[in-house]
Every structure is written in C-alpha cells, then in structure tokens.
C-alpha cells in the first residue's frame, strides 16, 4: 500500500512516518508532500491508497485538498492528522469525505485505532 503523508512541517512528516512504523505499518511505502497543492499533484500522478493530511497548511489547506479531490472524482481514502480537534472540524472532515480524524499529539496506538479499518 502507498501512503501519502501531507504536512508543511518536515518534523511532523518524520514523526508520522516513525509512528506508522511503530504501529506496524512499516511494510507500506511512504510518500510525502509539504502542502495541499503539492499533494494534489502527487495524488493525481501516483494515486496513493491512503492520504494522511494536516489541516492547516500554506498554499492549500487539508480540507481544501480533500474537497478538491472529491470534486475531481478521486475517492482515495483520506484522513486528517492535525493539532486542532474541535467538533466542528471533525464534522466538516466527515462531511467532506474523510475516513478518520487523528489529533496531535498521537501515539502508535492512536494510529492503530484509526487505521485498522482502512488498512
């Protein structure tokens, strides 16, 4: 499975990758993008199986990316990994087609719980 990690922070992309490995998903291939615009191009080109995406990013936010994907007919499994976890955002994520919503800081157990139904 190809997993795309989208976050404007290189540190957070590294932490997400590391935590995915700790959660037992190290056998999958990881790709990275640093904002929503770059991720959109990457998704259209390489068609990953799963996207883990931050919410607040320059160029294009995570929610804008998801909305653009769904509007383009791209139904890639998509989940948010973000520092903000308000009910409003969670609902907006679900309404836009997100499969899960993980709040930072997270643990390997958090990822296992969120991803067990999609991987």
């Amino acid at each position, binding site marked *: 499975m190809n997993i795309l990690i989208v976050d404007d922070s290189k*540190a957070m992309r590294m932490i997400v990758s590391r935590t995915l490995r700790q959660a037992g998903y190290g056998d999958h291939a990881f790709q990275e993008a640093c904002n929503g615009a770059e991720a959109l191009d990457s998704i259209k080109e390489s068609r990953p199986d799963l996207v883990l995406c931050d919410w607040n990013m320059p160029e294009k936010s995570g929610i804008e990316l998801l909305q653009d994907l769904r509007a383009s007919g791209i139904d890639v499994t998509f989940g948010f990994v973000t520092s903000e976890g308000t009910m409003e955002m969670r609902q907006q994520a679900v309404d836009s087609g997100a499969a899960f919503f993980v709040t930072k800081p997270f643990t390997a157990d958090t990822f296992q719980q969120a991803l067990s139904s999609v991987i």
Partner: protein
Amino acid sequence: MSADDHVTLQDWIEATAHATLDLAPTLGYPGGRVTRFLGRPSEHHGACIPMISDIDCWQIGFVADVDTCQELGRALLGMRSTQRDLGPEDLADAIGELVNLLAGGVKTRIIDRKPTVRLGLPVLLPADGDIRIVRHQEVRCAELQLGPTLTQLIVFRHELDPDGGG
C-alpha cells in the same frame, strides 16, 4: 453580535500553560509546572502562532534560550539522546511544529468561549533583540519548567478595532 466571550489574558496564559504541560509525555518528560508569572518575556528564541476570533486577535507561543530550543526540538523529534544540535532549518521546523501543537491544545480549551477562533501558521520569533510591545497590545508571560527545560510562555492580545471606528 459575536458569539465569542471576552477571555482574559490570565485565562489565556493559564490555558497555554496547561496545554504545554499536556505535551510533556510527547516530549518524553515526566511533567512540569509554572514557576512564576512575568510581565513580559526576557528570552528571544522561539515561536508564536496567531489565534483570531471575531472580536480579537491573540498570539501565543514560547521563548527560551537557544540551548533550550535545541533541547525541545530534539525532544519533539525523538533525538534527545543524541545531544547533537539540529541545523537551523530543522530547528525552526521543530519549534514551529511545537507551537502548532501548543496552539491546538489551547484552542481545545477555549473553543467553548471562543467558538469563532481560528489558528494561523507558526511564526518564528527574531532572536536579535527584545520582543517589542506596541500600541493596543497587551502581554502576559509565564515561566514554565517542563522536564529539564525552562521556557517562557507568552500571550499577546491585540484589539481588532481599538479606536471603535465604524
């Protein structure tokens, strides 16, 4: 009329302190505590992030000495055991992400009173001089011991329409 309540500077700095203490496990620290409240920060290295509501704008963040910023950056990246300094870009990235995590925790704590609040993107604070407080700004600062580190949490408040113009 805005749905937001007026949240005091003290409320904000306390929310920021609690949110920072919540990050202790993530950083591999056993815990921490507020050691004192200050009028304004005395350290220069760090980051802040804007939090904007319908009625006001806040900046929250932290400052510390350069060694403490390195320690915090390494802690976030799981590199504390290396004791190797992060390069400038990696340190800036780690500190920016740390303040992002902090802001998320603060927002969770105040969202019921500030339902319109939105987060901006992290801004690194310049290390070449004192942080200047300008007109229509208020600041509150709390010194926080987190594991082996001593940081200064800062909260700035800006009135969006201080002169009441229409």
